[in-house]
């Protein structure tokens, strides 16, 4: 094996199917106990309590949204000041130039808008989406995840990855139809 090949090993993912949300939850706990890191549990809908079972930390998305909303608010405060009090000062019905009370609806709207974009684009960015092509889609069986299938997938960049060992482990925790998908 040349150096280049070793550095860029083709992606190989082992998947196993489970019967129900409860089975998948147990499997997630066992995977964590088994010391696996690069695994994921796929389901047609989010399963309550799964984050805890997999030992995942809270999503950082809230901070991204907060940051985006704050930036939107600060930008709008600056813009209303710049437009109404600095660049083209215009006295309207005797109000002060920077009559911020009247700008609150605009501040609010832009804060919300910036937060919404932060939530949507931030979620896509953290999840590395859009990614229309992925090795997992090469398995027809895996593609039932969006219908009624529950799967655990283990990637070959997991430090413990060894096809025989992983297969045996997945089967020992109740996984069925174990298969390997490649690029």
């Amino acid at each position: 094996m040349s150096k280049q090949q070793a550095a860029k090993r083709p992606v190989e993912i082992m998947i196993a199917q489970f019967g129900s949300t409860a089975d998948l939850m147990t499997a997630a706990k066992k995977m964590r106990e088994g010391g696996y890191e690069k695994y994921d549990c796929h389901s047609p809908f989010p399963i309550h309590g799964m984050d805890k079972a997999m030992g995942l930390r809270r999503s950082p998305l809230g901070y991204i949204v907060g940051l985006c909303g704050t930036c939107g608010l600060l930008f709008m405060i600056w813009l209303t000041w710049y437009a109404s009090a600095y660049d083209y000062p215009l006295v309207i019905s005797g109000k002060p130039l920077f009559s911020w009370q009247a700008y609150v609806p605009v501040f609010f709207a832009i804060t919300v808008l910036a937060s919404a974009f932060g939530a949507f684009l931030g979620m896509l960015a953290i999840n590395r989406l859009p990614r229309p092509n992925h090795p997992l889609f090469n398995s027809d069986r895996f593609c039932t995840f969006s219908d009624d299938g529950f799967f655990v997938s283990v990637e070959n960049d997991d430090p413990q990855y060894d096809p025989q060992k992983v297969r045996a482990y997945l089967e020992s925790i109740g996984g069925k139809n174990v298969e390997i998908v490649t690029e």
Partner: protein
Amino acid sequence: MSTSSENLSAKVDPPEIFYPGNPSYHDVSDVISRIVETPFGKGWYILFSISFALTLMLFGILAYLFWEGIGIWGLNIPIAWGWAIVNFVWWVGIGHAGTLISAILFLLRQRWRTSSNRFAEAMTLFAVICALMFPGIHVGRVWAVYWVFPIPNQMGVWPNFRSPLLWDAFAVGTYFMCSLLFWYTGLIPDLATIRDRAKTRFRKIMLGIFALGWRGGNRQWKHYELAYLVLAGISTPLVLSVHSIVSTDFATSILPGWHTTIFPPYFVAGAIYSGFAMVMTLSVLARTAFKLEDIITLKTLERMNKIMLVTGMMVGYAYSTEFFVAWYGGNGFEKFTFLNRAFGPYAWAYWIMISCNVILPQIFWFKKLRTSIPVMFVASIFINVGMWFERFVIVVTSLSRDFLPSSWDYYSPTRYDIGIFIGSFGLFFTLFLLFIRFVPMVAMSEVKNVLPQANPHTHASPEAEVVNE
């Protein structure tokens, strides 16, 4: 001991059954996805042709309007706001129920909403598109409509951020974008479902693009769920703020009948009321046409009728408060305006409004009537008519008779006013029919999530037994 175990089990509420047929996950995918996967019958094409013809009529009238100017409408001075503003407020209001169902009911964990939130949200989007059109064309010189945006320009002039009309542009624009993002976020897992069911190459590629490569891993769901929660959280104040800001278009003026502090809550209650009426109309149609009785259940419809009863009472309360304040406030102009509403030249519109909005929804006190599909369908249409007349009464009666009798006038729409309003229905239904043709109209992943077998703590489902193949 048996008693202690009974006590224990009594503490845990049994999971509520939302879908009485007790469908499996696959049943849910199948029933919903099949709608967009099989060719539609004649009915869809007939409805689509009618809607699309009306949309073309709308575009034709708009072209004539742009050429000729808004003089083709029935506006005069003092009545410079006519049907266009009435329609704008009406359409924006309709959108509010969609956001209420998708955001507020989500935060309140009202899990029955799962069957109707998707198309209520779609309704919001299309209603807001129709709404945004009206102020856009009302400016007359549509090529200058970009002046509402704070864009640096050669004139060196900025928009006036103190103006409620500008607040409106920001509020409704934000509302549209947030609703779109929220709707699309909810759609991603369902687009993945129909992508994975796709048979033809074309569908695989198109849905592959729109599903963004969703893989349903819990490491993705974790961020997805938070994004959905955040979007619900920030859409919740929008339900209250957007129509409040729309109401300031009126309330910040000094016209009798408009210059009141009751307007923001009164407009919001009316918006939710009319929006639920429209959701009801569409739900009943979709449910009957696509045989979704097990998904959009009678129980869900009954709950919506109860919400309509409540918001209808709020609207009725606001009407009476307005009258009380007109009398109690001791302002002669205010008093005259309200007597003029009820007994003046527009009394017919006022009494249509009262009958449809206040008297009619009282039928929902009776369980028999609020669980009857034909009754609720007809009632929902009457409520929408009534809510349109509410905006008509507010806009037109106040303008037609203000402080000086010498400037009083009567307003009647022209055929172009009527044509544009009918055309906006064409646009709305064209978009809606395209939506039910191409997009799963019920949120499948959310419906699956509230099935009893989805709860990993109480239920290990026998149906989900996987056999080694």
